[in-house]
């Protein structure tokens, strides 16, 4: 896949490091709301430049009780974000008081983190999709690496923005059932597959009763794992 690497012409001072350009990256994440909740889809590939190097990277994780986070961009930065969120959720749980951080709170927290890092010229090189359901309210939002953030009924990062969203805009409805939602996502991912190497789509699995999850499929069965 063609990765546009933006090289910062930053002068390095005192040996401090900052992310100049991403190395191992994930491609698009697509998310949308459907009747009972939110559904996210992403492939499992981690590219090293134009090579699809890692083939079983999970780019969607669930956060706390209510949310899902999908990321494209630098995988190591995604892992860093997961560490921050882990700590956040831990403290939230330790209160043990009936209150919990919902997707809106996490989305905002991530926006603050991303924006702050960008202001220090040391960005987390990710585009994040945050979706979830809390108290019956569906939430879907996106945060970019410079801190741009918004909410919408359907979002996509990276190339997905250009390829998938037109499809979503045309065919998205408020009351899609889970099966319809999956079909719509597959349609988007299929298009993506044509231009992006190693997009994998596999069987969907639902972890909770009332909100939907990432859809993965795996055509390249024989060649999993990293090497």
């Amino acid at each position, binding site marked *: 896949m063609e990765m546009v690497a933006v090289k910062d012409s930053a002068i390095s001072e005192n040996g401090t490091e900052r992310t100049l350009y991403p190395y191992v990256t994930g491609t698009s994440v697509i998310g949308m709301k459907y009747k009972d909740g939110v559904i996210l889809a992403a492939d499992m590939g981690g590219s090293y430049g134009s090579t699809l190097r890692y083939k079983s990277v999970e780019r969607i994780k669930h956060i706390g009780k209510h949310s899902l986070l999908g990321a494209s961009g630098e995988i190591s930065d995604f892992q860093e974000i997961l560490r921050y969120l882990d700590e956040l959720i831990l403290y939230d749980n330790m*209160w043990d*008081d009936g*209150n919990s951080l*919902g997707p*809106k*709170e996490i*989305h905002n*927290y991530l926006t603050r983190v991303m924006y702050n890092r960008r202001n220090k010229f040391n960005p987390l090189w990710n585009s994040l999709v945050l979706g979830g359901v809390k108290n019956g309210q569906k939430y879907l939002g996106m945060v970019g690496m410079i801190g741009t953030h918004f909410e919408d009924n359907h979002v996509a990062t990276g190339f997905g923005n250009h390829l998938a969203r037109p499809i979503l805009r045309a065919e998205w409805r408020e009351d899609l059932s889970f099966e319809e939602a999956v079909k719509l996502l597959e349609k988007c991912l299929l298009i993506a597959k044509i231009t992006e190497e190693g997009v994998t789509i596999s069987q969907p699995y639902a972890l909770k009763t009332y909100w939907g999850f990432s859809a993965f499929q795996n055509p390249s069965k024989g060649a999993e794992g990293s090497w």
Partner: protein
Amino acid sequence: MFRNQYDTDVTTWSPAGRLFQVEYAMEAVKQGAAAVGLRSTSHVVLATVNKAASDLSSHQRKVFKIDDHIGVAIAGLTADGRVLSRYLRNECINHSFVYESPLPVSRLVVRLADKAQVCTQRSWKRPFGVGLLVAGLDETGAHLYYNCPSGNYFEYQAFAIGSRSQAAKTFMERRFEAFNGYSRDELIKDAIFAIKETLQGEKLTSSICTVAVVGIDEPFHMLDQKTIQEVIDSIEIKEDDASAAAADQAPMQEEDKSSEAAAADQAPMQEEDKSSEAAPMDI
């Protein structure tokens, strides 16, 4: 409480295991003008008596809005109360900025309590001399907390602090079990009645009391004088009728109880401190 050799320092324990300075700080709260709070499942009401330093001055401010969903009423050193209100507002607004959502009340009172505790364990500090009734709403419902200078905090259905608060507490002890089912207006009425109890004979007018409400879909705000005066008037009308032995107006069975209480309270109104149902002087 008498002066003794263990009360000079907040960091000195007495042989009986007491920190006298902290207890003296709680005394300061008892000296302040009364404040009461009541809670139902959907609303919380705060009411305070505003003393004026003299006829020439304005009344002291005892109720502070902390955020749209939280407010406090204070009793004791007003200056300490103001400073703590600023701290609480800061905590709330910081949380809103990062999480775009209101700070849960229980978490706010814990921070406040921890701040108060610090002052009970540093030799170069003194405890805050103010008690706060924190009223707020979050996703777990309506809450009323009391924060002491000692760093303790408790959740209450209804509570009163300050001078002659025992009268209000006695009044509320008789009725608190029904509070959860009260409507907003009933809650306001009972709050004003409780404040009336603490006045023990002085006339209650809307100019010397402040009433504030927070509820689901109702951000924290203070009621205007006109509204308060209307409620006061309706309470007094009932009392007048009750003393004439006629059960009047209004919806609920509490009316019977309150007319009894009203009849009994008519005595103190005439400046005779008959301690029937009205409690004796405060601690």
